[in-house]
């Protein structure tokens, strides 16, 4: 039976077994896709916590034995993570038995017979890397007692020893060369006949044997088991495996050693690879703080759909270096890459390359000159970071000066506040829970609504406004879909001042909305169904007060029911109250000093990402711009000044996940900032 027939049967059998073997990995929908090439044989608890932040981990296979708990911990922290087991495909450490933590390598070594070593014409084992011996992956290798060659055995090892544990999503075969004649000055005797093969013959034997090994791995492990190679890209393997790492990008050995050459390879891989394709660009640099190098590699990677990794160098892949750019969620892809210096050309050549994403763009200057570029009718915001503040300054820009071989990620200016109330025309700053400004401030304004109207723009699942909006102005509530008015009502009849507004809604409709009278009105809260039917009505504070009442709506205590959170208007102590929808008081607490009577604005949001809503407060007129964050029991969780402490004009607070990081940002608005 020929090798191909055997392989055919194997493939057929494996087809039946595949569903049991592994589950399909899901590639991250958002960019950047980050990989960490972390080749230490064991990992600490602390490292496990940090490593869970990456999307793709390439961990040495020995971690399975040495740090199994940590490996499981990473998976628990990040269930979507892709973890590959690293092993060298064509060599093994010479004195591996002397290593204490090399359990799997020692197992592998025990099976290696004399006829599996790669030798020269004198029968001497060959070393291509210090303290390692090369293995013969060709079919010229001798059979062991079981009738196997190394290219038969290695896939079985991977499947039986690694995949079977369920810890790995795939394997990373290092040194996935398509040729071998360059090794040992071509003194190679692959078929063990004592004669040096010609270069062409050596390469052919090597690549066919290697391909056989990869194919068997695929056949045994199944189509959903990820196989990634490393080394100079050999097209013949690419249909079997899921991608290649382009180590030391742009490496001297890849496609001419230029950026353009490596990028051509990078773009080509997804067209050749088995699906899903996971090309990885790795850059190493002994300087952790060579941010320009990081950006250059990251921006290059973002031109394609691959993963980016950055670490020390080839002798030490084992860092957990994290960069400001990694924290920004660019979102899904919105365009293919294009060269701003040659818009009509798709040729991969040095240029100012750009690719658009939902939340921003990636730009890289791969030319030898600094490039100035003026964005036509576009504005972007630089990332705001501490590592390279000159580049990541948070500044809004409409032109860019980008140094040669530098890249940058720019944030699209999105001035729509979705799914939370804002006051039309107010100026808003956006903060995280710690009071750090995460985006530049802007005026939230839509000409569709009157100035100072309370507006809720409802977003679709993709995070963009879907035309459905609820607004309150001059004592009137309007529910509209684009230009069509779905509902109009006056909750307080003759009352014509501003209103406070909160709502529970899906992307399709408003379920419930809550209204509080604004300044000049009594502290009456009215609850409506989306149809406009009154569900309840109650006074949150002394009915004789005329400062109005501010409202927020959400399941703040996690009981599955919505609660109404109220803050008083002017004229009474700053007591926050939590009511049921029916108006039953559940609890209350003071948000500020009891003597402060300027009113309190309220909002709800999961600002720390723990799945529970926090209550956010901002003082009204006369109070300093101090935002406070409370849990449902009224315990302070955080506090910060959103504007100059001497500003006493009153602030409005809202909460919404502006940057798609699964935590609500705090939006703090004011009417006039001067």
């Amino acid at each position, binding site marked *: 039976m020929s090798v191909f027939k055997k392989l055919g049967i194997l493939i057929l059998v494996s087809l039946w077994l595949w569903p049991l073997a592994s589950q399909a990995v899901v590639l991250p929908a958002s960019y950047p896709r980050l990989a960490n090439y972390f080749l230490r044989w064991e990992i600490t608890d602390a490292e496990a916590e940090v490593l869970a932040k990456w999307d793709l981990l390439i961990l040495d296979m020995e971690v399975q034995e040495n740090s199994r708990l940590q490996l499981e911990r990473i998976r628990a922290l990040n269930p979507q993570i892709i973890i590959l087991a690293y092993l060298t495909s064509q060599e093994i450490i010479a004195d591996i038995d002397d290593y204490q933590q090399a359990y799997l390598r020692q197992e592998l070594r025990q099976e290696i017979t004399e006829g599996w070593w790669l030798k020269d014409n004198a029968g001497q084992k060959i070393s291509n890397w210090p303290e390692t011996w090369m293995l013969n992956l060709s079919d010229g290798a001798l059979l062991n007692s079981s009738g196997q060659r190394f290219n038969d055995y290695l896939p079985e090892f991977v499947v039986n020893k690694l995949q079977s544990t369920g810890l790995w999503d795939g394997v990373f075969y290092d040194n996935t060369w398509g040729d071998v004649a360059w090794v040992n000055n071509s003194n190679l005797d692959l078929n063990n006949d004592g004669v040096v093969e010609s270069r062409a013959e050596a390469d052919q034997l090597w690549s066919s044997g290697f391909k056989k090994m990869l194919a068997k791995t695929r056949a045994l492990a199944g189509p959903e088991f990820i196989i990634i190679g490393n080394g100079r890209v050999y097209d013949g393997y690419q249909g079997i495996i899921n991608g290649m790492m382009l180590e030391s990008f742009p490496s001297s050995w890849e496609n001419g050693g230029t950026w353009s050459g490596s990028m051509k390879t990078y773009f080509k891989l997804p067209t050749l690879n088995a699906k899903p394709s996971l090309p990885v660009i790795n850059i190493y640099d002994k300087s952790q703080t060579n941010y320009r190098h990081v950006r250059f590699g990251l921006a290059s990677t973002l031109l394609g759909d691959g993963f980016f990794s950055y670490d020390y160098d080839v002798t030490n892949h084992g860092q957990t270096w994290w960069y400001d750019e990694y924290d920004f969620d660019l979102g899904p892809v919105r365009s293919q890459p294009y060269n701003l210096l040659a818009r009509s050309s798709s040729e991969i050549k040095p240029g100012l390359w750009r690719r658009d994403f939902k939340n921003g763009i990636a730009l890289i200057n791969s030319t030898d000159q600094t490039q100035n570029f*003026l964005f036509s009718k576009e504005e972007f915001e630089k990332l705001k970071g501490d590592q390279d503040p000159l580049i990541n300054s948070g500044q809004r820009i*409409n*032109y860019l000066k980008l140094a040669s071989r530098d890249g940058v990620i720019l944030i699209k200016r999105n001035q729509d506040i979705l799914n939370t109330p804002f006051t039309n025309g107010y100026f808003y700053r956006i903060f995280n829970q710690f009071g750090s400004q995460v985006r530049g*401030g802007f005026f939230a304004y839509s*000409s569709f609504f*009157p*100035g100072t109207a309370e507006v809720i723009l409802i977003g679709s699942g993709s995070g963009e406004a879907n035309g459905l909006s609820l607004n309150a102005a001059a004592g009137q509530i309007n529910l509209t879909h684009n230009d069509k008015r779905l509902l109009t009502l006056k909750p307080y009849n003759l009352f014509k001042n501003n209103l406070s507004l909160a709502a529970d809604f899906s992307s399709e409709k408003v379920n419930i909305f809550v209204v509080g009278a604004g300044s000049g009105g009594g502290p009456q809260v009215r609850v409506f169904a989306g149809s406009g039917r009154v569900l309840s009505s109650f006074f949150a504070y002394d009915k004789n007060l005329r400062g109005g009442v501010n409202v927020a709506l959400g399941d703040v205590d996690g009981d599955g029911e919505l609660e109404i959170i109220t803050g008083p208007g002017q004229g009474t102590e700053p007591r926050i109250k939590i009511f049921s929808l029916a108006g039953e008081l559940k609890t209350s607490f003071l948000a500020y000093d009891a003597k402060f009577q300027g009113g309190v604005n309220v909002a709800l949001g999961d600002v720390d990402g723990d799945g529970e809503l926090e209550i956010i407060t901002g003082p009204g007129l006369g109070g300093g711009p101090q935002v406070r964050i409370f849990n449902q029991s009224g315990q302070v969780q955080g506090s910060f000044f959103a504007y100059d402490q001497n*500003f006493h004009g009153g602030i409005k607070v809202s909460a919404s996940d502006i940057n798609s990081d699964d935590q609500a940002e705090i939006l703090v608005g004011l009417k006039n*900032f*001067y």
Partner: protein
Amino acid sequence: MFRFFHRHWTKRWERFYSKNRWHLILDCSLGLLIIILAVAVLLLHFYRPNLPSFSVVKHSEINLNNPPLELDFSSATSSIKLAAGAPLVISFKNNGSEDLQNIKVSLQSSNQDFVLTSISGIDSDLAVIGNNHQVLIKKIPAGTSGQFTLQAHFSAKNQKTRQIIWQAESQYVLSGQSFTENFSLPTLNLAIRVTAQNLAYYTSPQGDQLGVGPVPPVVDIPTNYWVFWEIKADGDIKNLVFSGRLPQGVELTDTRSLLAGDFSYQEGSRQIIWKVSDIKANSDSYRLGFEVQLTPQGDQVGQTPLLISRVNYYGQDALTGEEISGSLGSLNTDLEFDRFNQGQGKVSAE
């Protein structure tokens, strides 16, 4: 009537007089006494003793419903400025046949929001200023008339009130009679105080980047600035119109922020117009912000180009109906109000 008396006489004759004549005598005596007392009352009523203190009555008669002094108070202006005081014109006329002397006119505020602090500037020798905001008119000869003007000064207790309600009281003596008359003075409207602003920023006063592009501006690269118009007044304003023109080379972007009113841009005249039909007193809700884009040309190197020019506003004081207006001039790239970028307006070549 006769029957009534006859019936009554008959009853009493049958019951009393026929039995005892003393009853008849007693009734007649009582009836006579009643008549005497009634006559006495009438006589006392019409009695006019000629006592010495009433001797002046011999002077000409005074019609108390139409006293001889006629006073009239008027104000020459429909609105005043508190610091300058309120002019009050007092017109007088003696309609009587006798001279009037020492007429006291006292002024005072009627509402608690303002206090009359002083009187000054009487422009006539006929009158002098006395104590307690009192004006003393020395003499008004019979049949004469005249007028004089004074300045009344007030202090405000409540800055939100614009109307001064005040009154006067005149007092004089004529023919032994003391005459006092109260007058409601013309209501004084404080002139509306309007604060209108025309400001340009690249960076907000609190450090937020509003604009975009190079500062100082660079030839051929757009720089966006924000212009703010704001108006605040201590009285209601109707039909406010704010306007300004964009110079050549400056374009309006689509980005703006409007707290009230309507925004429009007339491309032909390059005029930006902001209209607000009703402005409420003391509110800070009347602000327009809009972004303009300057793309400097080569011949502007070294210059500080205008961002907006001829900024004017006009409207109507809702209380007095007076027109209010103002001119706020121009703004250029030197950003006078931007503490972060002030003075960085000169266009550079690169």
